[in-house]
């Protein structure tokens, strides 16, 4: 294991310095071109496309999703549906959760009374801590449990890159041409 004793990075470096800097870009280009030529040659020999039409079908869908006419309406409609599903869909589970937590709160209060706990303790723990937490959970959890999976689904279908393609210009302009990525 390890390097041979005579390994020497500096020697490599000086080897490299013998090569002209300007030439290196050209060499890199040629290397990539040759790599691709070989890759194409290999694929031409071993890969057959039986059905060119099928391959083009995904492009057909892209053409609609990012078209001048339909690109933005579809995007807004999708966003609308996602929000509607999130808000409307969350209502029912939200109120169910709220009801469920409310019932537990009843039991908790009864338990505190049975134990003759002081009022301030009941106030802090049940009316404050418990009620606050359960309210947040019942309001926040259902929308999150709906919104994020839907978004993950859109991402899976590859719709989000199309959105980025549609909107790229809107987000690019303020930053002018200065930076990329």
């Amino acid at each position, binding site marked *: 294991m390890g390097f041979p*004793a005579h390994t020497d990075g500096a020697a490599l470096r000086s*080897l490299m310095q013998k090569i002209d800097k300007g030439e*290196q870009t050209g*060499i890199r280009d040629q290397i990539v071109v040759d790599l691709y030529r070989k890759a194409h040659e290999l694929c031409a*020999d071993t890969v057959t496309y039986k059905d060119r039409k099928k*391959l083009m079908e995904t492009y057909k869908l892209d053409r609609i999703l990012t078209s001048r006419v339909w690109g933005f309406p579809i995007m807004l409609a999708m966003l609308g549906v996602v929000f509607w599903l999130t808000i409307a869909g969350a209502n029912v589970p939200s109120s169910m959760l709220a009801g469920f937590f409310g019932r537990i709160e009843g039991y908790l209060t009864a338990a505190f009374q049975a134990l003759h706990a002081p009022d301030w303790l009941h106030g802090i723990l049940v009316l404050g801590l418990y009620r606050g937490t359960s309210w947040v959970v019942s309001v926040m959890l259902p929308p999150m449990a709906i919104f994020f999976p839907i978004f993950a689904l859109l991402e899976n279908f590859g719709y989000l890159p199309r959105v980025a393609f549609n909107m790229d210009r809107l987000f690019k302009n303020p930053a002018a041409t200065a930076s990329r990525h």
Partner: protein
Amino acid sequence: MSTYRVALIGNPNTGKSTLFNALTGLRQHTGNWAGKTVVRAEGEYEYNGHTYNVIDLPGTYSLFSNSVDEEVARDYIVLDRPDVTVIVLDATAMERNMNLALQVLEMTSRAVVCLNLIDEAGKLGIEIREQLLAEKLGVPVVKISARNKQGITELLRQIENVAKRRIVPKPVQVKYSEEIERRIQELEPEVRRLIGDDYPARWIALRLLDGDDSIIAALERRLGANASQTKEMIADGLSCAH
């Protein structure tokens, strides 16, 4: 019983992580590459009584050190030299993926090519003759669908073959333009003399030619960690160089 190191490499979105999960299941942990903000996912599986440590390298389009991801992947294959490198290709975009495969095969001969998303490719009417491809590439080629756990057994078998050196692949080398080949021939013996046979001399000669000094820096870092004596030599060399 021995332990082998297996690296997964491929373009982004080739289902490399799906394969990683299929191989290692819950036996995995993630962290970061030392000093880098690149996620390092590691896991392990057992096959025929041997343990295989799998490392999921960052997904990259090439290995020319254009980004930290590419450097991490490249350094691992060239310097850490895993026992087997599994090159995961997206069977639906072969040309682009093949480009990376050819680059990896310049760095290591201990590789298995794995054509993922083969079910998807079938649906699109793409047919790949993997036997012929294996002959042309000089390494084992396995068709899989990581998502449907298809072909995994065959992949495990081929990984074992390469790990145990039952198969010693002789990967195809890209032939560059005459000019570049001539210069490689000049450089390669010199490089081999300097770094020994443990590292891919032809590939390093190519990097010298295209001016990629990050690989030399990486070699030096590794060197410094390995032998403090040579470290001084490098320091001398560096001050000379500037």
